[in-house]
């Protein structure tokens, strides 16, 4: 089949939010959206998911925070961020200066009150097009279990947040659960406008010489190409069980991976670890996407889901 590049449509819809293309750097893998101008014009991106933000400033976890793996890495940054007020005052203006499209705010909390207050504040920001809720943090009032591992906790936090915001709310799910579909359904029923799947998988490495964990915090989040099949499987399950859009995330490293994830049911994708080993990763994927689509006779990304 002969096609010209001009006939290929890379745009996708996340509910009412239209993206020029499905490529979004994942939270924690692109800072606060600025600082990459030395590498390329970030306006080629569909959107950017900003660094996870909490109510109070956080230095994060002790170092070392990173361990290499065969096909990925483990990180334990610990939500380092300057706190929601400084993010609004200092980081968002810098991000909005270099990126002229709607941004994605990634909000974390250790209590429902914290989630609600952060979301209420970020919702007032014009440059934010969508709020992504990171429910992988431990609930300090709930015995330290991650919000995202309990249907009840996920539903509760979503319901409370939805009361105070006007922008779409996407919930980033942790894969460290027995049945991610039940969590996704609980999120949908509680009013989530979309899902992001998946966050990192809990892992660890040990240094053979010292016989100590490589990461100071012992365990951390495993990401990179190794987790792509798991992410794809979960996106497939979620997108078939739920009616809200699912942003696919986990080990995507190439335009082919993007297409595979979207055929699996993703409405858009987030790129994480790939950015860390190649600052041009998202740019190269966006450039290769029409090439791979043409090879496969795909003209439109909105009709790929099987």
């Amino acid at each position, binding site marked *: 089949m002969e096609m010209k590049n001009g006939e290929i449509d890379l745009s996708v819809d996340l509910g009412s939010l239209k993206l020029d293309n499905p490529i979004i750097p994942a939270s*924690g*893998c*692109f*800072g606060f959206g600025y*600082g*990459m101008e*030395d*590498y390329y014009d970030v306006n080629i991106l569909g959107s950017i998911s900003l*660094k996870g933000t909490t109510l109070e*400033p956080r*230095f*994060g976890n002790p*170092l*070392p*925070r*990173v*361990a*290499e*793996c*065969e*096909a*990925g*890495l483990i*990180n334990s*940054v610990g939500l*380092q961020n*300057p706190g929601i007020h400084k993010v609004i005052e200092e980081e968002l203006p810098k991000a909005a200066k270099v990126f002229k499209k709607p941004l994605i705010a990634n909000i974390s909390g250790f209590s429902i009150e914290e989630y609600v207050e952060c979301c209420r504040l970020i919702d007032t920001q014009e440059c934010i097009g969508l709020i992504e809720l990171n429910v992988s943090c431990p609930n300090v009032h709930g015995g330290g279990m991650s919000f995202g591992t309990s249907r009840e906790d996920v539903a509760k936090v979503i319901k409370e947040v939805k009361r105070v915001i006007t922008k779409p709310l996407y919930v980033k799910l942790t894969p460290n659960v027995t049945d991610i579909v039940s969590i996704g359904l609980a999120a949908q029923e509680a009013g989530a406008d979309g899902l992001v799947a998946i966050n990192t998988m809990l892992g660890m490495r040990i240094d053979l010489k010292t016989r100590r964990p490589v990461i100071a915090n012992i365990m951390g989040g495993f990401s*990179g190409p190794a987790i792509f099949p798991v992410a794809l499987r979960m996106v497939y399950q979620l997108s078939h069980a739920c009616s809200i859009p699912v942003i696919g995330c986990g080990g995507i490293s190439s335009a082919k991976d993007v297409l595979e994830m979207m055929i699996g049911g993703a409405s858009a994708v987030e790129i994480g670890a790939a*950015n*860390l*080993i*190649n*600052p*041009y990763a998202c740019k190269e994927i966006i450039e290769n996407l029409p090439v791979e689509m043409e090879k496969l006779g795909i003209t439109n990304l909105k009709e790929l889901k099987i």
Partner: protein
Amino acid sequence: MNRDIFLEITENFRIASKTMKMVLHGDTRLITAPGQFVNLKLEGKYLRRPISVGDYDSSESGSLTLFYDIVGEGTAKMSKMRPGEKIQILMGLGNGFDTHMDCKKPALIGGGIGCAPMLALAKHLNVEGKKPVAFLGFNTRKDVVLFEELTKLGVETIISTVDGTEGVKGFVTDAYNSYCTQHPDEIDYFYACGPMPMLKALSDTMKIDGELSLDERMACGFGICMCCSVRTKDGARRICKDGPIFRKEDLIWK
């Protein structure tokens, strides 16, 4: 300008018990200051390897010298590479040393492989008419590197070894302190690079101003992942992007 480019190895050989010298040829224009680092993509390794710039000339057809210890699988892989092979390198990372500081006789204090950036630094300071004195500390005689290179530049170079098999017996700080006793009030600034305990000791004891090159495990090396953060008086800063060089007075040691 593409910052992730291929450079060709022209030399790669052992210069001490565990230290290699690799010289590469290619476009080095993105390296703009001594103390910067580059990030090497190695076949079969997921993360890149950040290596300090040992020496360089900044030009379209320039050269880059890396001194590196063989400490793990990545550097072992590097050590087996041959002249003619190419390496994909993310160029010119980090801030680099400030060579324009108002000083006449700065100390260059290096510990182990932390001596690596002192060669380019000494060259820059020489050009500015300063008279640096180098203090290079190692565990033992077989580990000593860069003595000849620095001496050739006319830099007074004092070696120390922990076991006393070469130069002053003890840590590099011992060698520095005994020099200062013999030459009081001469050293008026310092540049340091080495293991964290050495840098902390310097931060705690140095009465003069100076700057330190920090090293931590990194993921990206260009400021987006926050894996190598350090506490400073201005809050958390990234060693890879805001550093690796920090002023002594800005760092907060825990």
